[in-house]
């Protein structure tokens, strides 16, 4: 297993619309395992392949209390939505930003699990929010897209500044005289 690098907003690769997984393979399973490891160490409760620069429709999720119920969803689709719910969200690709987003309160989901078996289930609460958030990633969409233009621009500026600062800090320091 290996920890992957998470792309940060406004990286253009986060805007990719990911392609479906065509065949279950050892490679796909390794990707899912690496993504889970990356998600747990972030720490996060969901991660989409797009966020680690992989152009595949695959998400991993764990909303359990103890972080011991990993789930892998391949080619996930939302079949139906019901109700609305507003929850504060944060994203591993938009670190340090937490904003309220309105989404469907419950969703019916179809996907393949990590073994390629078809799943169809209803989700609500945090799981419903998380699945919608991650499927958005597969479509090149981020939670900041739900915010006002002004707010999004402010977040982009802030993150660009932080990324710039981080790059400068990692350069070797000039030798002391």
């Amino acid at each position: 297993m290996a920890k992957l690098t998470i792309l940060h907003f406004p990286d253009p690769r986060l805007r990719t619309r990911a392609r479906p997984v065509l065949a279950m393979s050892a490679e796909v399973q390794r990707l899912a395992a690496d993504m889970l490891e990356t998600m747990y160490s972030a720490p996060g409760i969901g991660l989409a392949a797009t966020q680690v620069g992989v152009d595949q429709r695959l998400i991993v999720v764990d909303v359990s209390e103890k972080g011991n119920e990993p789930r892998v969803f391949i080619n996930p689709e939302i079949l139906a939505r019901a109700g609305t719910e507003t929850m504060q969200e944060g994203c591993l690709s938009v670190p340090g930003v937490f904003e309220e987003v309105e989404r469907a309160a419950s969703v019916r989901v179809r996907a393949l699990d990590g073994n390629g078996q078809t799943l169809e289930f209803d989700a609500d609460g945090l799981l419903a929010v998380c699945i919608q958030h991650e499927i958005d990633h597969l479509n090149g969409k981020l939670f900041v897209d739900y915010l006002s233009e002004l707010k999004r621009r402010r977040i982009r500026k802030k993150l660009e500044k932080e990324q710039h600062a981080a790059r400068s800090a990692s350069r070797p320091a000039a030798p002391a005289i």
Partner: protein
Amino acid sequence: MSRHSPRALAARVLAAVWQGARLDEALSKSASGNFPLRDAALVRELCYGTLRFQPRLEYWLTGLLARPLDAREAELHALLLLGLYQLSEMRVAPHAAIGETVEACRHLSKPWAVQLANAVLRRFQREQARLMTELPQHEDAYYAHPRWLLERIRADWPDRWREILEAGNQRPPLTLRVNRLRRTRAALLEELAAAGIAVQPCEFSADGVVALEPFDVRTQPGFAAGHFSVQDEAAQLAAELLEPRAGMRVLDACAAPGGKTCHLLECCPQAQVLALDNDAERVRKIHQNLQRLGLSAEVRVADATHPDTWGGGRSFERILLDAPCSATGVIRRHPDIKARRRSAAVSASVAVQARMLTALWPLLASGGKLLYVTCSLLVEENAAQVDKFLAAHADARALPIAAHWGVALPPGRQILAGESRMDGFYYACLHKA
């Protein structure tokens, strides 16, 4: 998606309470219901605990801050207080309490406060031993009650004020009332015990069952089936004191959410009960409770102080007046009272209570009984209020309450919060000549 922050959410709920919201409503409106159960429980614990000890936490925070926080920073203020609550009262590892609380600054979109929160909480941790030792020298911080309330309770109960205030900082038990029309208490005790819930019969209420550990009543099928309700033992004493009989006309003047209404119908289903409340939203709860328990009563949205608008010339053999009050007897159950109630509100309730007594008395039939109830510990709302009423009404007489609970007063009987695990209640039985 990154991990959510129970601490940030709790800080938002607390800020809403300071804006005047009720804690239970602010909590149910928050998104905590979407969290995994353990996190939702943490949000609840942080909110209840921080409000319970707020006067103490404020005292510490003032000393730890180099200069006061901007008054607009209510969420940050709340976050710092709940950080101190975790360090002083909860069994959370200090590094986790500090780390997660500091991290919650980002969830509140206040990354600039990270350093401040870190400094305040670490300084508390370093100085905790000294701060704890010095605490008894600062009365309102030590007893964790607002100064005005501490003074009033000390004046009203000069020999018992310390134990009253200490009881106000305890966690209340979860007490249930069996619906005697559907289950015996023995059967309910057995069913709950079989479900792994430790329960005991109550001491004074024949229908009461106290749970030794809180549990979510909705997980027990008997709740939806109307076998039992949630109600403190002190509140369960009302039905027995009122003594409703079959066919009697009974008025419950401030009935919402209907706990006492339902209990007196469970004791006497043939009583003709009219239940009023002036809050339409809460009247809905009366209907829900009646339905769940399989009972029926006439329910109206009406103001008890204006019988001309709803009385229609009716008279009643029994009147239950569970009057609006300072709720100082249930502070352990609703610690937001400490933050929301001001001393001026007590004078306002005293005036309303007097108006209600005066307005309802003419509706009581000769030979009838009015039971005056508050969940207050303050003499002005209780014995002094009833005394004033008796002096102005020659046809009214206070019946002594023969009971093993509470303190006998002239007139009425007072349960102090914490006595036999009960809430603080006042009862007076008034008989009409």
